[in-house]
């Protein structure tokens, strides 16, 4: 312990450090950019009356919530449609991604990296022209305006997460664990279901969540292929927003936001570093 205090000691002891002012300003702006719109959204969900030039709502209440959650309201039916489509997309993606991921991870496939890259194509090109063409094609074969049509469109989009993460999940499993099962007398199929699948489950779960959230959020494809017969939450949000009904739009947005945030925490727990390290390899 030195008895002589240095300049640094004074600063540490509570003297104001001027260098913090720009940092604080920067952090403040960042927080405002992220949370400003969210606060605005939350205010709109409970605003009964709010118009210019007032900075805050004039009257608060939950009457719009009642309208949104009314048994026969459009919001409830589109929420149901969104969840149904999301679950179907997850199921279809996993059915395709589990064998594909296993094959890409374990077997000596020719053009392996090209296959992985091809899955990225639907996300690499501008969406609009693709969906216009899909809509035209689906119209010809009668898939337009059906839940199946929307599920197919969402699956092409979500499959990249499912297959890439699925491949990584299978790659992260030591081949010897599978061989040990074969050595114990398990057929290839049995070893897959008893050893590979349970061990890949956390990674597959994470990919399922990504696919589900992607489907829940999807607008463009649903708009071209599904509307007006299939209404999902994003479509309702669009209609409400375009019609100036900010309360309905905000409540719908909040409904969309909650599962996204909740699932992100789950994904963060499920996706281990060793699986993430194998993504895209």
């Amino acid at each position, binding site marked *: 312990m030195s008895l002589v205090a240095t300049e640094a000691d004074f600063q540490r002891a509570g003297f104001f450090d001027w260098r913090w002012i720009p940092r604080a300003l920067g952090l403040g702006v960042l927080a405002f950019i992220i949370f400003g719109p969210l606060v605005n959204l939350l205010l709109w969900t409970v605003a009964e009356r709010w118009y210019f030039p007032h900075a805050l709502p004039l009257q608060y209440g939950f009457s719009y919530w009642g309208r949104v959650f009314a048994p026969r309201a459009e919001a409830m039916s589109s929420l149901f449609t969104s969840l149904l489509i999301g679950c179907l997309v997850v199921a279809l993606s996993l059915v395709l991604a589990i064998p594909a991921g296993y094959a890409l991870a374990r077997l000596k496939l020719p053009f392996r990296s090209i296959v992985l890259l091809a899955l990225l194509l639907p996300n690499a090109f501008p969406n609009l022209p693709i969906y216009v063409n899909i809509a035209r094609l689906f119209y010809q074969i009668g898939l337009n305006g059906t839940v199946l049509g929307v599920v197919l469109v969402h699956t092409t989009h979500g499959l990249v997460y499912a297959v890439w993460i699925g491949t990584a999940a299978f790659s992260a499993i030591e081949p010897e664990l599978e*061989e040990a099962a074969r050595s114990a007398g398990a*057929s290839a199929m049995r070893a897959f279901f008893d050893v590979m699948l349970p061990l890949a489950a956390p990674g597959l779960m994470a990919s399922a969540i990504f696919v589900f959230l992607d489907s829940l959020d999807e607008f463009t494809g649903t708009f071209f292929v599904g509307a007006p017969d299939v209404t999902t939450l994003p479509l309702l949000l669009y209609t409400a927003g375009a019609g100036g009904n900010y309360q309905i739009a905000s409540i719908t947005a909040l409904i969309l936001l909650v599962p996204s945030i909740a699932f992100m925490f789950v994904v963060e727990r499920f996706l281990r570093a060793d699986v993430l390290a194998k993504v895209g390899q």
Partner: protein
Amino acid sequence: MNMLESRYPAVSETSGKISGRAAAPAFLEVDGATVRYGNVHVLEDLSLSVAKGEFVALLGSSGCGKTTLLRTIAGFMQPVSGRIAVDGRDVTRQPPDKRGMALVFQTYALWPHMTVAQNIGYGLKLRRKPRTEIAAKVAEMQTLLGLEGLGGRKPAALSGGQRQRVALGRALAIGPDILLLDEPLSNLDARIRLTVRHEISALQKRLGITAIHVTHDREEAMVMADRIVILNAGKIAQLGTPQEVYNNPASPFVAAFMGAENVMALTAEVRGGKIGIEAGPTNRACEISCGDRSVSSGRLEARFRSEAAELLDAAASPPVSGEALILDGTVAQASYPGGVWRHVVKIGDQQVVVDSSRAFASGESVSVRVPSEALFLFDGGVSDAKGMAL
């Protein structure tokens, strides 16, 4: 215990009379197997037959093909040519699960999502055994391997030695015809390894299982195996009992691998069952009876172990009793690893290592006496001796 022994009825007869030459009919037969990784031949036309109840060690340095041979026998690799048969049944094209073998992996490969009991009982569950029978067998394995009370634990909560025993229990639980061990001791602490070594071979003898054990540890192979197969570059360098490969190495490679790392070049003339070694710049002339050696006149490569040679004062007259090769040199270095003094002796421009019960000072002139029975002689010079020495 009774359940186990009833699974292997012919234990006492088979394990009792195992000879070095596999006189018993072959139980496992590898016939002319060639295995490739891409264009690299890992195994070249390799043949091996193992009798029932025999413990065979595949010994070699890394990359010699010993693990490949084991994996080919297990069915995880396919030979491009050749045949593998178990008890007369051709299994070359059979998948690993149809071969009646159990493999213990170097990394143990325990399933992390199953408990110890589930790991051990998995093979029995696959065979649709009743739950009570599985539980009884798992309990028996736990007792046999000292894993009592650990049945509910996951592999992550076990020590290395415990994991190794679970892996062994998992392999033994299914009552395999052949137990394949892929360096199962290499991940253990040195002290535990010595114990587990004896545990495994005692267990194998008691159960009468045919076992094939891959290792790069010479002593481990010597202690555990009935017969040792020394592999070099995908071929069998020598095959025999531990005593045979130790005392009669068939090639300089085997001699070096079995610890005879001291190497000298000699010139000799063979006549009438005697090898007459001519005096060289560093060795005295001597005559040695041929015995088992098959060498011809000309350049010879001599090899011997450091502990088999004797270090003598150069001034003292060498004892005349017995045939021996005498080399003259000076002590370059002396150290004490325990038990005996280890000397590096400079002989001409070469160095040999010789153990002695008493210390010789550095720089002292000495004679190295290699008795006939400890001297390995091979045709040819020592040109590639450095490459052979491991």
